[in-house]
């Protein structure tokens, strides 16, 4: 954490190599959050670039006293993902598609390249499909808790909601995910 703060300080002083180090250390984490949220590699790649662009522009607003750099960065990622979701939802609505999100996202996820599916593996692909069928509120809560292994306090800061709401969303997200997996015929071993 101290190393991150030091790198941020160096970046703010115009040190390009510090920024490069910061990008190298964190791009995997941001990319994974984006990928798990969208279920699409290309979109995740574009979104990761946008996230770092935003971080680069707003790095001066980061205050280490308010939390770790990773939490702040995840918060920026989450805000951008929600913006992206709303934007694409509007686009989908103008295309006169069904507004029901699970159906739309199921179509998206089924349009994945075959090599991508093979890469993920059967079970991983099914779980990813089920994840993208969750509502964005539940999906982000589940991703942060169960994939990024964040504590409730950190998730509370990122989502800017009370801890009770965080717990409730995680709980509902898990139950909903289990229901979708059952519907898809994914049985427990």
């Amino acid at each position, binding site marked *: 954490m101290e190393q991150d703060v030091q790198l941020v300080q160096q970046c703010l002083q115009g040190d390009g190599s510090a920024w490069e180090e910061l990008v190298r250390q964190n791009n995997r984490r941001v990319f994974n959050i984006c990928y798990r949220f969208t279920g699409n590699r290309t979109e995740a790649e574009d979104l990761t*670039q946008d996230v770092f*662009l935003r971080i680069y522009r707003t790095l001066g607003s980061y205050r280490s006293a308010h939390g770790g750099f990773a939490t702040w960065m995840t918060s920026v990622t989450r805000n951008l993902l929600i913006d992206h979701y709303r934007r694409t939802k509007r686009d989908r609505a103008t295309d006169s598609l069904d507004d029901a999100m699970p159906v739309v996202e199921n179509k998206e996820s089924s349009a994945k390249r075959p090599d991508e599916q093979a890469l993920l593996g059967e079970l*991983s692909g099914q*779980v*990813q499909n089920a994840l993208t069928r969750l509502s964005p509120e539940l999906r982000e809560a589940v991703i942060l808790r169960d994939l990024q292994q964040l504590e409730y306090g950190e998730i509370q800061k990122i989502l800017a909601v009370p801890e009770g709401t965080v717990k409730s969303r*995680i709980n509902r997200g*898990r139950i909903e995910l289990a229901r979708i*997996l059952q519907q898809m015929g994914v049985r427990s071993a």
Partner: protein
Amino acid sequence: MNWTCEQTELLLTDYLDGLLSSAERHEFDAHVNSCARCTPLVSSVTHALFSLHSLPQIEPPARLVYNILDKTLGPRETVTGWAAVRAWFHGFNPQRFAYGSVSLCAMFLTVASFTSFNWKKPRVADLSPANVYRGADRQAHLVYARSAKYVSDLRVVYEIQSRLQRSDELPNNQDSTTPQTSPDKNPGSTDGTAPVSPKQQNRANDLGSRAVVLAAACPVCSEGRIR
């Protein structure tokens, strides 16, 4: 306390994350084990959680970092021609590179000379694995044969030296070495050993005479011992 299905659903995350007190956990377990509706719920959510935890981390594409750096810091300068070659060599440490090159050449020369590579008339065929192996095998046999011959020659020289030493000592002790008749032993027999046959004696004499000839031919022996 009467635990309900709603409580089970509400506190499922706390249960799975180990946040329930032991009393609550006990009641939770007791209810789930006896409730036909809650048993599959807990089972399926546990499985979903396990599936989520088993999802692998996805490796981002390698170009991602460069794209981000290009978008934020601006495109990197691209050098071409001699500047690119110079930049490529700039990464080398000259001393280490020179030391490495010399070591590599020395190793190559050693291996090549050991495989009887002809430096005057180098051929590509000499570098084929079969020819390299054949050359190395031949060299190894040659080295072995030379070593064996060297050891054999040394043995002959030492034998000559020892015989010459004995012959130097003979005139001084001639009286004492004259065989005396032993009263309790038969003439011609030694102590507990078989008598030397005439054939063996002749061979020894013959070897002795050859040794003298060899010693005369050997400059070291002729200077040091034979005067």
